[in-house]
């Protein structure tokens, strides 16, 4: 559904606006708890089913997807985020309801033992479950960190189809009240978010739906890959803004909106799930890279403003925003006002040193609060703004391969989400 006006594709499609409005209508936007946890399955004994389903993209196209899901739940894209613990024997039992054999591999895990009887076969990379068969894999993670799992059966086809997910290993001494990503104080965090990046070429999905994987043989789709959709946590923008588990995204349960407060440490778990490298640019501030592929690197940590996310690799980074040294008071305080927690005192009470332009010359963003200051809401001309409920500072986090910010020709969309720095006191769940 391309709206063409004056030969130009209309970017802010009606559907985009509708989806944002839906977000606000759910009322799920602001919760009660003070910490965001990554949504997933926790434990050490996971029962998954691989099956097929259909996801509907914001441009209206249906895409046939293969995914992992909890055996008692829906197929999902990406598969469930499996959260286990360092040193804990972890077992994953996979039932295959797909029309083709499938399997799982766990890079970064050593000595993965596969078990299966009737209904399995030894594949090239892993023990596979035949259609209807069951296979189980077990391993004991030695080191905490962010990992991913994916199909080890024709991964060029099956990962594209959707058979992948994140694997998070908590450190042995994990304390939910004082969480750390690794056994290292430099990895302590207040908020934690997953950003699993992937892409899809719908032509491949269409062929697999009709003819199975073998249908790709005479075509050049695998080598001349042309993705049209780019995802964070299995959703394209603006669906990424929606909360976890909204009922109308049955197969895409994971949101990607990150929220934090000034001065808090946010753990970004960034995962390259697809086959392309993505430059994940996080507006707002630098992030400190503390680990790569689940191997702690705090002694050699460095800062970036764009996270280079390679296929099959993971990066853990700590992101904090304070607004310090802006040269003006981000809260818009008068000199006599009290300081906010963690506020950079030398800028306290300093005004913005430019005159902001007359309203009639300005275009306003939906997430603009009407005022430059954190926590402040002001009215905007009718029909403008309206998506910023708490006067939070919104920063777009997105692929800087900007081509990936569209959904099959319609912009904006694709591999983008928001990070919101909420004023102190706004609850985050």
């Amino acid at each position: 559904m391309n709206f063409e006006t004056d030969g130009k594709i209309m970017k802010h499609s009606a559907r985009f606006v509708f989806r944002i409005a839906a977000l606000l209508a759910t009322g799920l936007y602001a919760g009660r708890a003070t910490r965001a946890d990554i949504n997933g399955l926790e434990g050490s004994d996971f029962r998954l089913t691989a099956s097929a389903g259909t996801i509907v993209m914001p441009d209206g196209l249906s895409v046939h997807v293969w995914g992992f899901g909890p055996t008692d739940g829906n197929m999902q894209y990406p598969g469930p985020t499996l959260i286990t613990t360092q040193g804990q024997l972890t077992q994953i039992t996979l039932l295959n309801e797909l029309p083709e054999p499938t399997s799982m591999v766990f890079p970064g895990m050593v000595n993965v033992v596969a078990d299966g009887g009737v209904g399995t076969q030894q594949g090239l990379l892993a023990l596979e479950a035949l259609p209807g068969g069951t296979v189980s894999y077990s391993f004991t993670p030695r080191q905490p960190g962010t990992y991913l799992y994916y199909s080890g059966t024709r991964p060029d086809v099956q990962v594209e189809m959707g058979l992948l997910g994140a694997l998070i290993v908590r450190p042995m001494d994990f304390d939910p009240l004082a969480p750390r990503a690794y056994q290292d104080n430099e990895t302590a965090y207040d908020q934690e978010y997953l950003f699993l990046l992937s892409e899809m070429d719908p032509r491949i999905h269409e062929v697999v739906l009709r003819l199975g994987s073998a249908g790709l043989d005479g075509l050049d789709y695998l080598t001349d890959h042309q993705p049209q959709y780019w995802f964070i946590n299995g959703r394209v923008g603006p669906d990424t803004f929606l909360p976890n588990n909204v009922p109308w995204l049955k197969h895409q349960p994971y949101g990607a909106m990150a929220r934090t407060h000034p001065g808090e440490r946010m753990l970004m778990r960034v995962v390259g799930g697809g086959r392309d490298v993505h430059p994940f640019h996080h507006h707002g501030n630098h992030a400190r890279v503390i680990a790569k592929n689940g191997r702690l690197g705090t002694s050699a940590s460095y800062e970036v403003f764009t996270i280079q996310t390679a296929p099959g690799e993971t990066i853990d980074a700590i992101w904090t925003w304070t607004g310090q040294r802006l040269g003006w008071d981000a809260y818009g305080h008068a000199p006599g006002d009290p300081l906010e927690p963690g506020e950079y005192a030398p800028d306290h009470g300093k005004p913005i040193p430019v005159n902001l332009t007359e309203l009639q010359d300005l275009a306003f963003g939906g997430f603009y609060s009407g005022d430059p200051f954190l926590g402040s809401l002001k009215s905007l001309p009718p029909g403008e703004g309206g998506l910023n409920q708490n006067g939070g500072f919104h920063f777009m986090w997105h692929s800087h391969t900007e081509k990936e910010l569209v959904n099959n020709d319609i912009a904006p969309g694709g591999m983008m989400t928001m990070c919101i720095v909420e004023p102190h006191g706004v609850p985050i769940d």
Partner: protein
Amino acid sequence: MKTPKRIAAFAILLATASASSSFAQTDVFLVAKEFTQTMPDGVQIVMWGYALDADGDLLTDDGEAASSPGPQIVVPPGEALLRIHIRNDLPADTSLIIPGQTTTLSPVMFTDASGRERVSSFTTVVAPGATATYTWNDVRNGSFMYQSGTHVAVQIQMGLFGSMTKEFEPGRAYRQPTPFHVGEASVFYSEIDPDLHAAVAGGTYGTPAYPNTLDYRPRYFLVNGEPFSAGVADISLGAVGESSLVRFFNAGLETHVPTALGMDMLIVAEDGNLLPTNRSSYSVFLPAGKTKDVLIQPEMPGRHALVDRSMALSNNNGPDGGMLVFLSADIPQELSEAQNKLDTWSKRVFKAKAKLTIAFAMPEATPAEQRAKARAVETWRSRLETARSRLSRAMNRLVQMQEDLDS
């Protein structure tokens, strides 16, 4: 047809031969030539590659088989000089460069229709049929690629590349703190776009039918010169617990991400330069033209898949191919002996137990029967005891060895 080639070669060889009185190890004789390679699906690809000149004189075509990547050039530790003598049997000018190794480059420029100077070759060319010598006087240790420096967009893709390596000292790739290694292997990635090869071979390159390489789309993805298919040999890393140096090369035009399933790699160097810190990783980010060195100490015997996670895993879009290879680790000799002993003694325990059971069931109606039974029971009891104690010793020995390996 070959005669003029020989004459030209002879004339130049006289000039180079006087400079190098002896053929030291650091003199390498290569012939750049066309050859045909069959892909796993039967498709024939015209390649350009290098062959080692059999008699080291570059005078005659002795039918040496060219390959891509070309012969591995190994400069001995401590040796500073490398001379590559090359005869060009290709239909185009070519040259040799080694990015990362210092030498004087004499770029070949041409003037285009707008009067602008452009480079066509990063260094002096050798014309078809001619020979030339390329010299590096101060060879650094590390992993490098030698490759064509001429019309690189075409010639590298056609296959003109190979590895050049030098150890810091025998058994150690780089200076301290790089550890010594026991095993050594190369993982050399390259790509083939059959349309480009067909255009070059068929003379349509540079015509409207195939104007240039911009629309490059590789369809074959090779490790050490061949795409994966059933029966491709594993890369042997040596024994479990031993450290192996694996040198990664990417002569392709795209980034690849070799990913090891079930083992960690310690990334120690990039483009022949020691990295500031060593990082343990299950994958290696390998952009076009890059070399990286890793150390692998396998923990488990058997085969470990090394897959390109950028999903170059098909042969012309057919399944189970591309940039896939298995790294295999053996069980060390004494470990395998210990394991054999364990097997032997557990079999004997089993046998003794079975015999003892039979002995217990023997009749004991007569004194003779009673004596025979007692003898049999005594015999198998004692044998079982021996077998059990030997089995327990073998087990302890094995556990000890595993612990040694782990530490």
